[in-house]
C-alpha cells in the first residue's frame, strides 16, 4: 500500500533531496522544486513507519565500498505538501532501493498533480546498470545508431 502512495504522492521533492547534494541544480531556470534541498531540516533518525530490516548506520552510504546492505534514513524535510522523509538502501556501492518513510498527507488533488515521479539522478558509482533498467529514453536513436545504444543491449539481453 505504501508503495502506491510513493509514486502517487509527492516523490518529487524527495528525490531531489537525496540526489540534489551530488548534482548542480544551480543552472539557469532552476525551478522551485529543484531548490528544495535548501529547505532541509536537520531532523534525522529512524521513523516509526520505517520497516527497517537492516542495520541502520547513518551518514552517506553511496561512497561505501563494502558489499554490505546498508539502510540510511534521511532527514525530515519540509516541502510545500508537508514533511517528507526517505530511506535509502545500498548494497556496496549500488543503490538498491528508495523508500519514502514519511510523506505528506496531502489532499487527493495534490496526489493527482504529482502523478509522476521525478527522475533519480545516477552518479558514477551507479551508472550503466542497464541490468536494472527496462527501457531507455534518450535523444532520438535512429536505426543506424541503435546497435551502439543501451537499448540494444537491453533488447539483446532479453531475447
Amino acid at each position: 500500500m505504501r508503495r502506491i502512495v510513493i509514486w502517487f504522492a509527492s516523490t518529487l521533492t524527495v528525490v531531489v533531496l537525496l540526489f540534489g547534494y551530488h548534482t548542480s541544480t544551480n543552472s539557469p531556470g532552476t525551478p522551485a522544486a529543484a531548490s528544495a534541498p535548501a529547505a532541509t531540516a536537520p531532523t534525522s533518525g529512524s521513523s516509526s513507519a520505517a520497516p527497517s530490516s537492516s542495520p541502520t548506520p547513518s551518514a552517506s552510504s553511496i561512497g561505501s565500498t563494502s558489499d554490505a546492505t546498508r539502510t540510511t534514513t534521511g532527514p525530515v524535510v519540509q516541502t510545500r505538501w508537508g514533511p517528507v522523509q526517505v530511506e535509502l538502501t545500498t548494497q556496496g556501492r549500488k543503490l538498491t532501493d528508495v523508500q519514502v518513510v514519511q510523506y505528506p498527507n496531502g489532499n487527493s488533488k495534490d496526489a493527482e498533480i504529482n502523478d509522476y515521479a521525478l527522475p533519480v539522478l545516477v552518479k558514477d558509482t551507479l551508472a550503466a546498470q542497464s541490468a536494472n533498467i527496462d527501457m531507455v529514453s534518450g535523444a532520438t536513436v535512429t536505426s543506424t545508431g541503435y546497435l551502439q545504444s543501451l537499448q540494444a543491449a537491453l533488447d539483446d539481453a532479453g531475447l
Partner: protein
Amino acid sequence: MSGTPAGTAAPDRVHRFVEHVMGLPISLALRGRHADSAEGRRAWSDVMAELAEVDRVFSTYRPDSFVSRLGRDEVCLEDGPPEVAEVLTLGARAERESGGSFAVRRLGPEGRTVLDPSGVVKGWAVERASRRLDALEATDYCLGAGGDLQCRTLDAATAPWRIGIEDPYEPSRLVAQVPVRTGAVATSGTAHRGAHLVDARTGRPPAGVASVTVIGRSLTWADLDATAAYARGRDAARWLGTRPGRSGLVVWADGTTTLVGPSA
C-alpha cells in the same frame, strides 16, 4: 540481488521484441499473461503494421508520402486521411502553447517554409499504436521508439517499469532513472543525430541545453513538450515547470542538471 522491495510482487519475466520502422528501432517489453503468447505476438504485429502505415503517410523522407505531397501543395488536406489533420492540429496547439519555439511549418535551411510534422508524429504514433496493446488482458507493456516510450502497468502492486535516461554526452551511460507505472517518457536532444532540432522562432539550434526529458501521461504531449522545451534553450526548465502534470529532467550544455516537478 533483487531490487524488489518487500511487499511488492516480484515482477513477471519480461519478454522483448525489436523491429525497425520509420528509420527507428521499435522496442517492446511485455510482462504478464500475454508476454509470450500468440495473442501478444499478434498485438506486436499490429503495432508494427500501424507504425508502418503512419510512416507511409507522414514520412518527410518519402517524396511520395501524403505529407511530402502536401508540403509541395500537390494535394489538399481534405484529400488525405483524417489523421493528417489531427496531427497538424496537435502541432498548431503545441506551437501556441510553446510560444512558437515548436512549429510544424518553419523556415528551412534555404529560407523557404517547410512542412515538417515529424516533431508531432513520433510521439503521437507510438502512443496511438500502444492502444493495440491495451486489449491484452493481465499484461503490462512498455513500448519504445527511438528513445521515447509509453508504458502501462495494470496492478498497482507490481513494480513500476524502470526507465533509464541516457547521458546526452555519453549515450552508453545513464544520467538518471525514473520509475513509471502508466505513462510516457520522451527525451529531446542532439546526442545521436547532431544538431537537427531548431528553435522555430529563430531557425537556429538552441543554446545552453543538451537534452530535455519529460514524463507525463501521454507520449504525444511528453514528446511535444520535450521538443518545445529543448528548443527554448536556457529557458527549458522554467518553461517545462509551467506545464501541467509533467515532471522532467534538463541536462544543460555544461553537464549540470535540473529536475523539474509538476506544476501545481
